[in-house]
């Protein structure tokens, strides 16, 4: 039965995180170097405090020590954190999502026993999924509606030793959380003969494994939020029983998003940026006087603010719908929600709409909208990063178009 009431827990966590953001994150976020994007590294103490509040393990089930948050709750938290600081948000959101996927969904009991206690105990421990490789491209564009695989090639390879252990060689690039992660899920090719996108396995690799090096990337040269690193494996030996799932059919082959819990968390963060810009613009429009009236009383500014509000409301509504649908996959078959890819719809709309929202909000500020020591320019830049990293709106539309045509690339 249709019901849009948030639960008491959802209200509570929203209030709690918002307060945390106001008291702990905002004072850091408005530091000049951070606003000017010279140092966007998430401060360790903030990450620790957030972990102590349970935000690092938000999606991990309660029996395993997490908060067992559902998809909408995770989106609420992601939005609130990003409204304060998207780089802090990106680290926590990634670990939280992976904690559920790895510990609740994919690990064997023995693997869980080996890795969970250390992860729970150490509030600074983050998780990483090493999937992306240098120069990889889905090639969705050129292969739109063509029956060829569009999975990027996996060159990072693992071979078995006679004892069954694995030897990994290769490089993963732009791995989120790599500089902070204590445990990596690494996508490796274990069947050298399989076509692209197949014959892939996932290995669990602890940070201190010999032959593995992590190079933190310069955040400001990159085009992402949070911290990322390149991870290189040189004859890295991983015990046989650290294979996650079955050999040659990685449960993470299609990326984190394609799992049952593939949640629009990045989009929720993106909304956080739009909302921060919007709230700043409304506050300013309520005090700035021009033509002897507060500018919010001018039709032109009022219309601009209304357009931003409409976009945010639409984006959040769609993101929450996609989040709920991810938690309730059966809803598609019983036709309560569309069979088009909702997360992609949410992604395309949110990226474009929040970018416009940030630009429009900056317009309200006049010249102050382009100054590096004011937050507006950073909201615009953050929105651009969301718009132009990961799957582009253009590729998103092609993916939706393939679904409309009921084209399946198997």
């Amino acid at each position: 039965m249709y019901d849009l009431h948030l639960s008491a827990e959802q209200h509570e966590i929203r209030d709690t995180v918002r307060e945390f953001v106001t008291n702990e994150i905002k004072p850091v976020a408005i530091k000049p170097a951070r606003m000017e994007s010279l140092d966007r590294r998430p401060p360790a103490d903030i990450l620790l405090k957030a972990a102590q509040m349970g935000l690092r393990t938000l999606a991990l089930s309660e029996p395993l020590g997490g908060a067992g948050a559902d998809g909408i709750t995770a989106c609420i938290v992601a939005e609130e954190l990003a409204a304060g600081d998207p780089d802090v948000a990106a680290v926590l959101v990634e670990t939280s999502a992976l904690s559920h996927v790895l510990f609740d969904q994919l690990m064997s009991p023995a693997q869980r026993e080996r890795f969970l206690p250390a992860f729970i105990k150490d509030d600074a421990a983050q998780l990483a999924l090493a999937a992306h490789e240098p120069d990889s491209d889905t090639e969705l564009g050129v292969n739109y509606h063509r029956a060829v695989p569009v999975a990027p090639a996996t060159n990072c390879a693992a071979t078995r030793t006679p004892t069954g252990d694995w030897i990994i060689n290769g490089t993963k690039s732009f791995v989120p959380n790599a500089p902070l992660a204590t445990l990596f899920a690494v996508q490796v090719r274990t069947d050298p003969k399989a076509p692209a996108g197949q014959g892939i396995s996932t290995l669990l690799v602890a940070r201190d494994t010999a032959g593995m090096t992590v190079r933190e990337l310069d955040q400001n040269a990159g085009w992402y939020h949070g911290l990322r690193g390149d991870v290189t494996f040189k004859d890295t030996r991983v015990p046989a029983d650290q294979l996650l799932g079955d050999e040659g059919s990685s449960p993470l082959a299609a990326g984190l998003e394609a799992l049952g819990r593939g949640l629009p968390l990045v989009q929720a963060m993106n909304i956080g940026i739009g909302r921060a810009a919007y709230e700043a613009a409304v506050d300013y429009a309520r005090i700035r006087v021009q033509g002897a009236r507060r500018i919010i009383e001018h039709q032109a500014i009022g219309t601009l603010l209304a357009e931003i509000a409409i976009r945010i409301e639409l984006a959040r509504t769609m993101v929450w719908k996609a989040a709920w649908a991810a938690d309730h996959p059966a809803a598609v078959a019983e036709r309560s929600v569309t069979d088009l890819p909702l997360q992609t719809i949410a992604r395309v709309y949110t990226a474009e709409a929040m970018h416009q929202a940030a630009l429009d909000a900056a317009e309200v500020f006049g010249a102050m909208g382009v100054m590096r020591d004011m937050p507006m320019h950073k909201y615009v830049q953050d929105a651009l990063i969301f718009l132009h990293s990961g799957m582009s709106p253009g590729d998103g539309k092609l993916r939706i178009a393939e679904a409309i045509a009921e084209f399946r690339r198997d």
Partner: protein
Amino acid sequence: MDFSLNDEQREWQQKARKFAEEDIRPVSLARDRILDPRETWDWDLFKKGSQLGFRTLAVPKAYGGPGADFVTQALVMAELARGDSAISKAFSQNWKWSHLIASACSPEQKQRFLSAFLADDTFVMGKGITEPNAGSDNRLPPEDEVRAGVRLKAERRGDEWILNGEKCFIANGNIGKLFFLDARSNPNASLKEGVTMFLIPRDTPGFRSGKVFNKSGWRFYQNAEMIFDNARVPHANVVEQTGGQSRLDKSERTGGDLFGDLELAANALGVCMCACESALKLTRSRTQGGKPLLEQQAVQLKLGRMNMLTEALRSYVLRVAWEHDQKLPSTNAGFVMNFSTDVIQEVTQINMDLHGAAGFTMDALANKLVRDGIIWTHLAGDAVQRMKVVRRMAKATG
């Protein structure tokens, strides 16, 4: 109807293109990356451009300058901006003020300032209007509040005026040698009646520059605070007594007032040209599945839109430049300025879009062009800048 350029126009265009390619573009991205906004200016580059004539381009021949027409000015601005938008502005910023000296100042003022300007490759100028609490009110004075706008106070004391207050976001505020400055000489009269324009040399006692604004884009071009603390300006530096600007006749204002509109539009054109080239180069060379991106329909549609808008803007810019040369009063200067905002932002955005499809890095030039383009919003295309033009149009046709 003739869209061709004459020899002089073409020569200046070629000269600007060469300077942009050989001198501006090689340093543009490095200048953009400098973090301290006080350090972005490059005197060597500027002096070289000045020696080529770009600083003094608009000084009339009668006063010893090249006296380039507006079409030439538009062409040069676009070519320089194709190399770097902010560097182009650093040169063209001087043109309207040298023009203003030539057309509105007294013979004595002309002698004093124009000769100095012509002689010195490091002589740059600016004009101070905006104040911390008076921005849009100067552009579009409210009808029901005559005292809105400029608050910098000017009081006459014998042969001197005493100025108190501050200006902000003033172009070249920290490096300029001479500024036109609007100050309130009558606190109870409207902007039109109560404001006097002064010529303020840098060494004016009681004047100092304050912070340099740390802009997201347009890094080379500096905007600063100007602080007046009992600053003393001789009466001889008043432009056309009180109400100076409004006394210019209409045809002069086409050049004096509206040049700024053309300037932004022509500069935007150059940025768009750069973005189109960058996008075409990328989509020809980057491949997907072994084929150039350029072969994909979605890419073609994006490239088409960029080029279509850029050529529409070029057509409109050149028409407006010609109208200025003919001293035709028109609202086109305002409209083309508004239009250039939409075009520069969409075109640079599509270019970023094409560059960004690759993942987690961004082309530094594509990023710079977007940041440079965003500044158009408040200079050329926010609601105030648009309503201003419409009201002018309604008045002209009413």
